[in-house]
């Protein structure tokens, strides 16, 4: 079946530890204007808008209240996804597939600098039982990390090599926040936060925003010389309670990626995909996610990384942008992965370009330890 929805415009901000020099509407207006300019549309062309932001990160309810003016949604249908930006793309895509919209703007923004990460992610958990125990994204991630590493005999050095690769590749990404290369020794020697996760294994606190313009097949062909098509998409949600999940079994990601592969006609992702942008907030997660998405067998994520298969120049480069390890405005992460995937397919990824990329995977996740999973495959 011909793909029905295309991406015709993208933009992203540089990720920074603190964008306090400007307010959120200012940041968002800039990315929206850039994405719309790239799509060569003006506000009258917009049929609907989907935003992604989370109240607790923004310190207010209905956190899209400050975005209405700057995303062009006055007197237009706007909906908000309180979660990852790639999830918002799914909503935008559905509006187009349903015939309710021909052109949809999807915008995601988050500022880690406004609040305190651990305090906010503590509120992600059930307030009656889990929250008083101090669970947050970091401590929950550490439980998953250990579970995974024990199951497959993965060492902390194996995880550190993810950081080395991503920080090295981030040198080529003008939007990256962390651009300092690292050694395995430096990662191993960095501050232990929650065993086995150390400071340098974790994504930094970041501010940033991203925008994409989606179009129906008809509009994309009329408006764009280089539409990038959504070839496959899958999403899946696991249980909230960590104890109810198989922490490293990753059923949600297996199902989401299989759904996307099925639509895109992909049977061997390592061979058939040219590049993958993966949302991993901790080094171990990049290894785990690549296994669950079938780039290799279970337990072999570290091996294919060590062999260079997931490095720039390898058979399937993973996160040539540097991924979340070099910039992490929490809910923007998945949309950033999509923007990077689109740039790759267009051959416009600058020094981080994977030569000849024509099919790219983007991955987003929401909740802790990959509770919600989104996989989207784009190509030209």
């Amino acid at each position, binding site marked *: 079946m011909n793909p029905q929805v295309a991406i015709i415009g993208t933009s992203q901000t540089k990720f920074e530890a603190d964008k306090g020099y400007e307010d*959120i*509407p200012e940041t968002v207006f800039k990315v929206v204007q850039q994405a719309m300019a790239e799509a060569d549309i003006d506000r009258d062309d917009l049929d609907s808008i989907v935003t992604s932001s989370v109240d607790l990160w923004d*310190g207010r309810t209905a956190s899209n209240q400050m975005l209405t*003016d700057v995303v*062009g949604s006055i007197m237009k249908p706007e909906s908000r996804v309180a979660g990852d930006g790639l999830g918002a793309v799914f909503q935008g895509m559905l509006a187009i597939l349903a015939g309710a919209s021909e052109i949809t703007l999807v915008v995601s923004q988050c500022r880690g600098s*406004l609040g305190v990460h651990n305090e906010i992610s503590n509120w992600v958990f059930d307030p009656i039982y889990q929250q008083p125990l101090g669970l947050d994204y970091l401590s929950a991630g550490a439980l998953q990390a250990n579970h995974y590493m024990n199951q497959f005999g993965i060492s902390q050095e194996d995880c550190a090599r993810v950081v080395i690769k991503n920080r090295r590749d981030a040198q080529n990404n003008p939007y990256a926040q962390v651009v300092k290369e690292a050694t395995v020794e430096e990662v191993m020697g960095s501050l232990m936060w929650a065993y086995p996760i150390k400071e340098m294994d974790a994504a930094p606190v970041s501010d940033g925003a991203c925008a994409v313009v989606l179009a129906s097949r008809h509009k994309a062909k009329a408006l764009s010389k280089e539409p990038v098509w959504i070839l496959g998409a899958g999403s899946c949600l696991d249980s909230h309670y960590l104890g109810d999940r198989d922490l490293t079994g990753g059923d949600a990601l297996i199902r989401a990626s299989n759904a996307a592969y099925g639509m895109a006609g992909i049977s061997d992702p390592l061979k058939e995909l040219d590049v993958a942008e993966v949302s991993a907030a901790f080094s171990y997660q990049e290894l785990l996610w690549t296994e669950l998405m079938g780039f290799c067998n279970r337990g072999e994520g570290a091996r294919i990384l060590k062999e260079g298969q997931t490095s720039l120049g390898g058979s399937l480069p993973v996160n040539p942008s540097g991924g979340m390890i070099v910039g992490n405005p929490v809910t923007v992460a998945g949309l950033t992965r999509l923007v990077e995937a689109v740039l790759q397919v267009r051959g416009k990824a600058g020094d981080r370009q994977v030569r000849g990329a024509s099919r790219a995977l983007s991955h987003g996740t929401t909740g802790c330890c990959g509770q919600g999973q989104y996989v989207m495959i784009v190509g030209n």
Partner: protein
Amino acid sequence: MKRNTEREELLRIPIQMKLQYRFPAGAHYERFFRELKKTGKIMGIKCPECERVLVPPRPVCGECFTRTGEWVEVGPKGTVVAHTSIYFPFIDGSTGKPRPIPYGAGLIQLDGAYSAINHILEEGDPDKLHIGMRVEAMLKEKREGNIGDILYFKTIEE
């Protein structure tokens, strides 16, 4: 038959949500409050397309989806476009104390402005408040550069 209206009391867990944030005010609020503090002027910003003066000032006119332009002084006199009288206690964020009730609250369209702004009305008696009445901003003597620099709007005769 006797109706059973009593239910077993279930456990309730008291939880206090305490989170801290630092909001970047941005260039527009920055100038709005700086001007208010230094000169006591209330400033609006004009959209170059529709020419409406928006208060508080902001980077974009949402209606025109266009960057705002020229800064203009508005008020300090204005017209009440909506009002109410409040009879429940409210902890004033700037003082940490309950505001005496009843108090008037309104939307006030400052002279020269398109947007009406929310603020406190000195008059709290609903019989003495009406739409279209004229009011004027009363400012603190020692201003600090926040919305509390406007104490309230008092009723004026013209």
